[in-house]
């Protein structure tokens, strides 16, 4: 019996890639547990990464439970869609419905997706050929700029990118880093006077009928113009309909709590299971993370620029900072703008305005994902 070289003593089969990934899994779990950085995701991702990189463990190999989960939940795109039902049930779109113009800020802030896609393709197969980025990979990397984990998974899986695991980890990590990435950009683009600008209070509430019709109409409008976005927007708005219709309280509660928690746990451990050292540790993976920062930064810049235009056109009734909330990192981005507003003017409460742009960004990022899925195959 070949004890040393065979199916025994895993550490004798440990290569440097697997060892490095075990360290990375430890860092991910430490970030989640000790630093509370997206713990709901980073702890399962770290655990999955650890299990996938134990030599001879077989957890992520064909037939292993992580491989089965990947096949059932990621390749079929079921996990991100189920999460979207939960997200839809959690989101209150009232701040957006009170300020529908914020949807345009959400649209502008998707420029980070396309700008980063262009840059990645330029560095890859498009021109310089420095990195192994195909058109599909570049589109999947760009989608990190949606600041939306489920959309990132859905798009990168559908486009069959080689970097799905890195893209998902980057998307979720950077969402937690919004309070670090956005403030310097906003401060560089908006003067103290602009940051101190108060916005008029929006009077009146949105009727229940409007709240019920909103998800239905959104699915019809988005689906009929951009059909590839239908699964994502459909699940998001189905969840929201459960929340707002008032007839299915128990389903809404289940979607917001039990279902989303179970799927998040399974998704996290499965994504971690995709981080096998031999596939994950490449120069391109590091570049995927760098591109993630570029995407979030471009989102913020484009959002604030449209915010500035709206500020001028509205006679200074719109604080340009809320443009930065057009990315769908909800609610981190809103909190960042509220904090910066209060720093500039202690009486400047922008939270509800920022939240309007933020939830608008959620819809816009889903549309952007669908647009990517529609356009990229046309140009391959």
């Amino acid at each position, binding site marked *: 019996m070949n004890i040393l070289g065979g199916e025994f003593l895993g550490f004798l089969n440990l290569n440097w890639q697997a060892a490095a990934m075990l360290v990375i899994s430890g860092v991910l779990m430490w970030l989640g547990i000790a630093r509370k950085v997206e713990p709901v995701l980073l702890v399962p991702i770290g655990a999955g990464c650890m299990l996938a990189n134990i030599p001879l463990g077989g957890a992520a190999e064909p037939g292993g439970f992580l491989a089965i989960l990947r096949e059932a939940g990621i390749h079929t795109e079921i996990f991100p869609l189920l999460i979207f039902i939960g997200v839809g049930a959690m989101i209150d779109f009232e701040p957006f419905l009170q300020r529908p113009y914020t949807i345009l800020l959400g649209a502008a802030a998707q420029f980070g997706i396309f700008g980063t896609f262009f840059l990645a393709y*330029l560095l890859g197969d498009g021109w310089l050929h420095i990195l192994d980025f195909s058109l599909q990979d570049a*589109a999947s990397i760009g989608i990190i700029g949606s600041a939306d984990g489920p959309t990132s998974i859905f798009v990168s899986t559908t486009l069959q990118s080689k970097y799905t695991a890195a893209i998902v980890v980057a998307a979720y990590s950077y969402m937690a880093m919004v309070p670090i990435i956005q403030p310097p950009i906003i401060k560089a683009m908006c003067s103290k006077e602009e940051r101190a600008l108060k916005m008029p209070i929006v009077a009146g509430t949105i009727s229940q009928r409007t709240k019920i019709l909103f998800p239905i109409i959104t699915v019809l409008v988005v689906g009929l113009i951009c059909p590839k976005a239908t699964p994502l927007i459909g699940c998001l708005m189905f969840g929201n309909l459960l929340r707002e219709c008032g007839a299915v309280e128990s389903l809404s509660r289940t979607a917001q709590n039990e279902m989303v928690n179970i799927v998040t746990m399974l998704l996290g451990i499965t994504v971690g299971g995709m981080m096998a050292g031999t596939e994950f540790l490449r120069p391109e993976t590091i570049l995927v993370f760098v591109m993630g920062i570029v995407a979030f930064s471009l989102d913020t810049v484009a959002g604030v620029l449209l915010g500035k235009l709206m500020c001028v056109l509205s006679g200074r009734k719109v604080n340009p900072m809320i443009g930065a909330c057009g990315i769908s990192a909800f609610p981190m981005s809103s909190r960042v703008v509220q904090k910066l507003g209060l720093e500039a003017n202690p009486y400047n409460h922008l939270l509800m305005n920022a939240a309007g742009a933020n939830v608008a960004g959620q819809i816009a990022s889903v549309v952007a994902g669908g647009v990517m899925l529609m*356009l990229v195959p046309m140009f391959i």
Partner: protein
Amino acid sequence: MLNALWVVLLGMAIIFAVLGVLLLVMTFLDRLVRPKEKKEER
């Protein structure tokens, strides 16, 4: 390279178009729903 540029330009145009239509529809819907509520209030 030109393909990528087309994706960027078309992509942003479609996003603004879709969300612009949504904005118009929601504004129209708001006007459609609001008067009925006002009548009820009176």
